[in-house]
């Protein structure tokens, strides 16, 4: 039994995939807190679809995926911020317009010039295959960078997220802070896409913060808990996907969804507890 569980660790591709999945889980759990508390879960879904357009374009142009999709993702994120600021268009509509257009463009590019083989499926659902040492290094660097940003800019990010009007009145440059957050979202999704896939990455951004919110009412604790839950789900989900022989994205997401169900059953919303008392 133990031997069977440890067997995949003999493969380098799995070890790399496991590290990336764990780091991606932690990273998505961390930045997902800012998405969930803003009520912008749709952003997680939309931005990953937008980046898919960049993925297709970079494959077509033969440039690095990280470079092509990265530029595309950041441009999409900034476009959302820009469109949102123009009244009377709300954030949800801005996300819908920018990201679905980008996703559609990606599908057209694949249909006209690409090949809908393994790489296409890997982009949609995630794959442990092909996770190189470079992928490990890239996600490690991005994780350190994002943790540094969240730590060093903790109060400005919190103030702008919680109360943007008063934050601006207190002298914070909230437009720049919003743009910084969107770039952080885009880069985090980009480096996590390989193992989580376009269609399922939203779950990694939304479920860990939602579980953490059930467990705490403190913002700093929520950041730590959500990262830890995301990392744990990434680690267990990647192992599960190997043993069940399924894509890594569904493996990680199903573990997170089960964790949510368990925590939700134990920690019922306060209103429900009062009603039952």
């Amino acid at each position, binding site marked *: 039994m133990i031997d069977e569980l440890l067997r995949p660790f003999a493969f380098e591709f799995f070890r790399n995939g496991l590290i990336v999945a764990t780091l991606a889980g932690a990273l998505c759990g961390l930045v997902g807190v800012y998405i969930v508390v803003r009520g912008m879960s749709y952003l997680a879904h939309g931005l990953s679809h937008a980046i898919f357009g960049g993925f297709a374009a970079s494959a077509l142009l033969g440039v690095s995926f990280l470079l092509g999709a990265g530029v595309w993702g950041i441009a999409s994120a900034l476009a959302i911020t820009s469109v949102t600021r123009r009244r009377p268009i709300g954030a949800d509509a801005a996300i819908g317009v920018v990201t679905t257009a980008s996703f559609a463009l990606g599908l057209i590019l694949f249909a006209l010039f690409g090949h809908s083989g393994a790489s296409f499926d890997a982009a949609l659902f995630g794959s442990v295959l092909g996770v190189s040492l470079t992928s490990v290094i890239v996600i490690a660097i991005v994780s350190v960078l994002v943790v540094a940003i969240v*730590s060093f800019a903790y109060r*400005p990010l919190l103030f702008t997220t919680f109360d943007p009007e*008063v934050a601006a009145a*207190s002298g914070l440059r909230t437009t720049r802070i919003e743009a910084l957050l969107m770039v952080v979202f885009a880069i985090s999704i980009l480096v996590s896409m390989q193992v989580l896939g376009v269609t399922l990455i939203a779950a990694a951004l939304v479920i860990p913060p939602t579980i953490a919110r059930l467990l705490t009412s*403190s913002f*700093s604790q929520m950041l730590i808990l959500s990262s830890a839950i995301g990392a744990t789900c990434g680690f267990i989900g990647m192992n599960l996907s190997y043993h069940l022989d399924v894509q890594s994205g569904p493996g990680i997401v199903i573990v997170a969804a089960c964790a949510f169900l368990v925590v939700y059953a134990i920690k019922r919303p306060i209103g429900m507890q009062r009603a039952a008392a």
Partner: protein
Amino acid sequence: MSNPTDNNGGQPLVQIQGLGLSHDRQPILEDVNLIVEAGDLLGIVGPSGAGKTTLLRTITGTLGPDKGSVALRSGLQIGYVPQVESVNWNFPVTVRQCILMARTSRRFAWPTNAEKAAVSEVLARLGLDGLADRHIGDLSGGQQQRVFIARALLRSPDLLLLDEPTSGVDVALRHELLHLLEELRSEGTSIVLTTHDLNGVATHLPTVACINRTIIAHGPTRSVLNSQTLEATYGASMQVLEHAGMRLIVDSPHHTHSPFGPDPDALLERAE
């Protein structure tokens, strides 16, 4: 908190001249002239859509004027308290985390010893001791209002701006709040607030400005709050009554109909 009158040489805190501001070509403020002096406790009253909140936003600098100018005294520290109705009470922050947001000079999560002491002091000052680690959604309405005032006070403001602080609060809480503002003013913090509560203004605030896109009147409450000014501001007839030394503002009854609906006797006659 320092007394703002100590070192300003009589210069006003805020001097607004010829302020005009439009949104989607609709004028919101037109030729607004207003001076806020150190030591003021000023109420801004006017109907919905009169530009009260917009005026506060031009003072905080979050909205820039299309015309005219808003000049702030050099080095003026402003504390801004938003409408509590706009707050997301499910947001995962404790009282301490909420108050510490105001200290934007430090960026890290964990507070310094000096910050811990400042938070304890402002919580005690506002009667919120022991609530630092509670979630903001678990507080009563009065406590929630005071948390946001505490957050503004942590910046040691010379000028405190409050947007509709008496909106949606009961009578006891309104009295408590207005007494608190009087105390803060006596300790040296100048205060400007917007409100729909004309009787609260008449009872507690020494100065008032009536606004409806432009300033209709500004000055001592007793001279400004009269029937003519209120009608010019609200476009509706109001009566100002004196009772037991207090000034009360009531809507005038409609000239042709009872304020309580159609005359029941007339309805009965018509039915017959």
